[in-house]
């Protein structure tokens, strides 16, 4: 439920005609969710993003675990955000226990994170979202007519995976990166391999962004929203920070996220919801570009300026293009990071300077702001709160689903076509339902 004008508890079955549009199982998204929209006559009476994925209670299970155990457990919240959870977990642990982050470790984590952004964005933009716009049920059926794009997009995705494998030990849920550093740093051969492949993929990444930039973006759902993302230091465009910046200009320190993003439980979802100043907000790649996109330089900066327009702040479909532009950024950034790492000696694992404290780790997952908030006592977790981007986005998504359903219905669209459009909107957020169900704020009694 989003705003008072969509009350879901008022149901008049009298003479009114109740029409329900249901997407039972969202396809081409990660996890098990659905959409329910109900009309009473022409009045929209219900908009629910239903989350069927069961609760795993990761925050409650975290109690009593060590920092390294947390670095191993929390990535299992979500496979497609495994490195984001890893980096958020590491940042929370290192802030709580005062562990240093030497340059080599910092740049390695940065590069590992770019691997995940590339993998996740290329999977979402080309394999999950693009079929919607070109009229296919899945990416494989695009092969006949768009073979080059599909093969190259898969190569891009594979490259992202290869980076994660090199830095984290496995494509999914590697154990090499932990609070304190890396078990083993990549060899120079591996670093050269990464650099070369990034250079090879540059041309395709730019051309592919033009394909996404050329797609016609529907306008039946446009409305301004609020965007939030990590605020980055100086002029850097980077996927983490210690502050959150909102599109209304407000900046809050990471430790104050709870007071500013108020959470609640809704009966139709095991994922909790959050509002900013009482309103839904977005934390997508589009949020990043809207808030800090001006910091982009090079080809990514050029493409940001080429495509940015006034519809970006009111239409979530632009998230696909935003992800594509970020992929250019990653591909451009990699050779630069490799050059830095090539000259650096391997370093020892850093040790904690204390045994207790609280640390908040903010990271930009491919699909938006991710928060890990840990409190340690005697080197073990006593309190843990994790909020994922999809959980933050759910209210905003419901808002847009509501607007779209109302407008499409008023235009006399058929139920099937409305259903397809609603699913397409949900996909544009790149939702990660596994992520959204690990539930969050432990309620203190």
């Amino acid at each position, binding site marked *: 439920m989003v705003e008072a004008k969509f009350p879901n508890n008022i149901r008049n079955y009298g003479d009114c005609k109740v029409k329900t549009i249901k997407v039972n199982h969202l396809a081409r998204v*990660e996890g098990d969710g659905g959409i329910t929209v109900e009309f009473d006559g022409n009045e929209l009476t219900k908009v629910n993003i239903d989350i069927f994925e069961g609760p795993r209670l990761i925050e409650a299970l975290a109690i009593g675990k060590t920092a390294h155990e947390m670095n191993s457990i929390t990535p299992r919240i979500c496979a497609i955000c495994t490195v984001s959870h890893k980096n958020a977990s590491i940042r929370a642990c290192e802030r709580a226990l005062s562990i240093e982050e030497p340059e080599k470790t910092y740049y390695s984590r940065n590069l590992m994170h770019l691997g995940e952004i590339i993998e996740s964005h290329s999977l979402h933009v080309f394999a999950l979202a693009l079929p919607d716009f070109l009229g296919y049920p899945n990416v494989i059926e695009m092969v006949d007519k768009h073979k080059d794009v599909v093969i190259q997009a898969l190569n891009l995705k594979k490259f992202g995976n290869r980076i994660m494998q090199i830095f984290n030990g496995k494509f999914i849920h590697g154990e090499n990166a932990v609070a304190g550093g890396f078990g083993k740093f990549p060899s120079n051969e591996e670093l050269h391999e990464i650099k070369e492949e990034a250079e090879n993929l540059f041309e395709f990444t730019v051309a592919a962004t033009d394909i996404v930039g050329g797609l016609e973006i529907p306008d039946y759902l446009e409305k301004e929203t609020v965007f939030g993302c990590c605020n980055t230091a100086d002029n850097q465009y980077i996927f983490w920070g210690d502050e959150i910046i909102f599109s209304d200009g407000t900046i809050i320190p990471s430790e104050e996220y709870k007071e500013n993003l108020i959470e609640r439980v809704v009966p139709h979802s095991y994922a909790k919801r959050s509002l900013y100043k009482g309103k839904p907000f977005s934390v997508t790649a589009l949020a990043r570009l809207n808030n800090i996109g001006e910091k982009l330089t090079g080809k990514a900066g050029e493409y940001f300026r080429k495509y940015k327009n006034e519809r970006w702040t009111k239409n979530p479909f632009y998230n696909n293009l935003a992800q594509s532009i970020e992929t250019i950024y990653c591909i451009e950034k990699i050779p630069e990071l490799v050059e830095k790492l090539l000259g650096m000696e391997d370093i020892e694992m850093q040790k904690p300077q204390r045994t207790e404290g609280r640390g908040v780790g903010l990271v930009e997952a491919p699909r938006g702001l991710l928060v890990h908030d840990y409190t340690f006592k005697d080197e073990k977790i006593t309190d843990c709160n994790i909020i994922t981007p999809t959980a933050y986005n759910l209210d905003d998504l419901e808002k847009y689903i509501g607007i779209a359903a109302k407008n499409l219905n008023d235009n006399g669209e058929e139920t099937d076509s409305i259903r397809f459009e609603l699913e397409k909107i949900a996909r544009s957020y790149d939702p990660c339902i596994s992520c959204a169900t690990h539930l969050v704020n432990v309620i203190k009694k």
Partner: protein
Amino acid sequence: MSNKPTLGIFGFTGCAGCQLALLNCEDQLIDLFEAADIKVFYEAMSNNDDGAEVDIALVEGSINTDKQKEELFHIRKKAKTLVAFGSCASYGCVQAMAYGDGKWEERFRKVYGDVEFAVGKAFEAQPIHKFVKVDATIPGCSPATHQMLTAITKLLNGNLPVYTNAPVCLECKLHENECLLNKGILCLGPLTQGGCTAPCISHNTPCVGCWGIIEEANHSAEIELLIENGYKIEDIIRKFRIFGGSKISEQYTKLWRL
């Protein structure tokens, strides 16, 4: 009519990493769609046929709502061969790390308060064999490309996958890694089903046990060794449990009052 074997890929509670592991076979993905007639794969396609009978059902994730339980029964009825795909489906994985301790409801209330949910009543995460007959497994968190593709190829050809009953240590030795246990580090390699090719130990980080406990694992011997090295029993047991799921709780509760 296609004479290709039919395949359904289904996901329940977990990180969706097993389905992602399939999508991560970038070089083989087109071949897979060629070799099998894929009826259900929600994570990858929107033309799914839920009602279809399938030769092979790959079931990812553990079961922890009554809605999921009903869906699993439905899949079992429609599938000739049902495969537990990955650690969550096989033994519960991380969400089952406190399996059977009797405190699940307390944890649930701690996280959600007293809300009544309309999306299926939740219960403690269970591996799928608690509800239906499982014909085969593909181990891993998440499955390794080579092992998973070999298993799927066998399944598509009408055979069941077989695995070497050897712990992670065997593959670790093949990589000529120095033994972490010998260095006094708590590594679960000797107790864990191999097949992952020991990537973690090859990166100087200990095995966490994410392929699940191997048959005939000698937990007592490892406990003795670790205690000699100065580890406390509660720390050792906690590590065993993180990825031990239902298996460790059932096999060893009696032995050590876990």
